[in-house]
């Protein structure tokens, strides 16, 4: 990755920082959003300067995504916007999962040595094998949780799923077990390298991450969904930052991390505005109607 590309990445990171800052105050919010959009455009243009991309796929994919995103964003009714944000957030999470997946496919296809050499050629940074694998596993885990969690939040907000919390006996135990098995799979992915055990562990990890996202969101009532979407937004930032650690890309790490950190703070602020704590929202299992407000 040339110095020019990295220089442009730094500028776009600065634009994201000012963008978020300005979004926090009423007079400058719209300009802040525009500023961060310029930052994003710059980051994309800088990436396109990287030689050797499959151009027709790049152009087709970007055109398709832009058209769908634009159509959805302009057509949604004013009242439907929060759930649309949840849906977009879910797509972002899935995109991060797939970035992790694509890197995993590359690794499995060419083997360790070849993959790490390619990574070094692209980013200029040499990493140990275990690091790449941990980053891939965590990206898949967090991306998957973000995806299905956001889909459930979308369903609850739009009324497609019903806003009532879904609770059953031993729910926390089931969630704990799922998370523990996911961690074990992550271990298998790292220890198994490019062998068959890692393949199984990785596939189970993908399934579990999607399951955990659902399990995490269903016990929360529809009235608390804005807080949950804010938390999932933070998670999608973390997923992007983790994806940045796979490909050793500074703009992904910085921008993703900014969203992750500011998203957590915003989530806590939103909880406070409802006179609740985050733990209370996540594990309280109520807030279906009376507690929501905010």
């Amino acid at each position, binding site marked *: 990755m040339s110095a020019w590309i990295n220089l442009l990445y730094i500028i776009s990171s600065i634009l994201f920082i000012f963008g978020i800052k300005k979004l926090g105050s009423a007079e400058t919010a719209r300009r802040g*959003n525009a500023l961060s959009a310029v930052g994003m455009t710059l980051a994309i243009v800088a990436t396109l300067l990287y030689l050797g991309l499959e151009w027709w796929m790049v152009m087709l994919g970007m055109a398709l995504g832009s058209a769908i995103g634009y159509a959805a964003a302009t057509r949604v009714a004013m009242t439907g916007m929060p759930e649309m944000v949840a849906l977009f957030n879910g797509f972002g999470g899935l*995109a991060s999962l797939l970035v992790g997946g694509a890197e995993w496919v590359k690794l499995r296809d060419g083997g360790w040595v070849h993959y790490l050499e390619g990574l070094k050629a*692209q980013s200029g940074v040499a990493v140990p094998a275990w690091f790449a694998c941990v980053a891939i596993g965590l990206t898949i885990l967090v991306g998957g949780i973000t995806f299905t969690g956001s889909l459930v939040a979308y369903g609850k907000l739009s009324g497609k799923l019903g806003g009532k919390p879904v609770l059953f006996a031993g729910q926390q135990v089931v969630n704990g077990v799922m998370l523990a098995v996911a961690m074990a799979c992550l271990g298998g992915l790292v220890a198994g390298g490019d062998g068959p055990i890692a393949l199984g562990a990785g596939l189970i990890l993908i399934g579990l991450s999607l399951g955990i996202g659902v399990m995490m969101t269903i016990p929360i009532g529809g009235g608390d969904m804005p807080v949950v979407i804010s938390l999932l937004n933070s998670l999608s930032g973390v997923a992007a930052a983790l994806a940045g650690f796979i490909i050793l890309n500074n703009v992904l790490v910085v921008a993703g991390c900014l969203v992750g950190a500011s998203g957590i703070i915003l989530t806590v602020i939103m909880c406070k505005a409802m006179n609740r704590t985050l733990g209370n929202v996540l594990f309280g299992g109520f807030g279906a109607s009376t507690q929501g407000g905010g």
Partner: protein
Amino acid sequence: MDYAPLLLLLFAFTLAIFLGFELISKVPSQLHTPLMSGSNAISGITIVGALLALSEWEPALAKGVGFVAVVLAMINVVGGYVVTDRMLGMFKKKEKGGPQG
């Protein structure tokens, strides 16, 4: 193994956490949703990772997965910014009716 470049990335990561914490303070409650939506659009930065998966020498499956990632990330980016702008646009119109002019 030279860990210095990796540590530099971790360094940036750590500083970005603190910066992210500091950026958000005293946000008026009517801006909570636009702020969430705007930062959601930024998390679409994963588009950069998705694009880099489309290098021409990569295996076909990786490119296929990368292509889907590009489409989804682009929906997140474009949709996110447009919807945030619409939210803030409504906000401004409301203010114009007030004494602020």
